[in-house]
């Protein structure tokens, strides 16, 4: 369990501190305007990258287990519950 606590500490450092940094670093100079297209679509594509990675893991897992645990698979064996009144 301690390993995971450490992992989350690293995540906190990697994600939250840069976010806080960029929040307080952003200023507004006259004549230099933010391009809302850049901000919004950047956010969108970053989120889609994460969503597609997670989606690949989840649907990959599901496709694999549908293939592996189908009853016609050569290695399929009865579950411990079969033949009982569970």
């Amino acid at each position, binding site marked *: 369990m301690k390993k995971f606590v450490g992992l*989350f500490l690293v995540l906190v450092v990697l994600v*939250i501190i840069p*976010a806080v940094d960029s929040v307080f670093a952003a200023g507004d100079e006259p004549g230099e*305007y*933010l391009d809302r*297209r850049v901000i919004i679509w950047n956010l969108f594509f970053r989120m889609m990258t994460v969503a597609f990675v*997670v989606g690949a893991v989840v649907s990959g897992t599901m496709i694999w287990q549908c293939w592996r645990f189908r009853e016609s698979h050569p290695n399929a064996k009865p579950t411990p519950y079969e033949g009982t009144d569970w």
Partner: protein
Amino acid sequence: MSGHSNWPEWIYIAVVIALMCWVGAEAWNAERLVEHVPADAEVIKVIAQQWFWTFEYEDGTKTIGDLYVESGKAYKFEITSKDVIHSFNIHDYVVLMDAVPGRVNTVWFAPTDVRTHDIQCREYCGLIHYNMRGTLHVEEPSS
């Protein structure tokens, strides 16, 4: 039910919660940047009604259907409606805000490319909602 170890589920939930925190923080930060209106933005009043757009500039002139702006400047839209709810949308610049009768909503943008873009209504407003369109003309800076 109980009796078996459930640690994979706890790790999974922790990862999901961490991801949601990241999404929330990123979105919060981007929204903060987008909502900050520059102090020198020029105000354009946008008045929606079934089924066309009227634009009123700072010098008092009005145009219907066509919106003229200069590239390199910031503009703040003050959007309202005369009858039902519409939604003012310049999709190419990701500008979107509802036009609600009795309220003034604001949104700002700074055009950069000299060309024309579509303006459309994105909230259902009746018979000709599908054709409540206008054109944004981004022109060379005058000065």
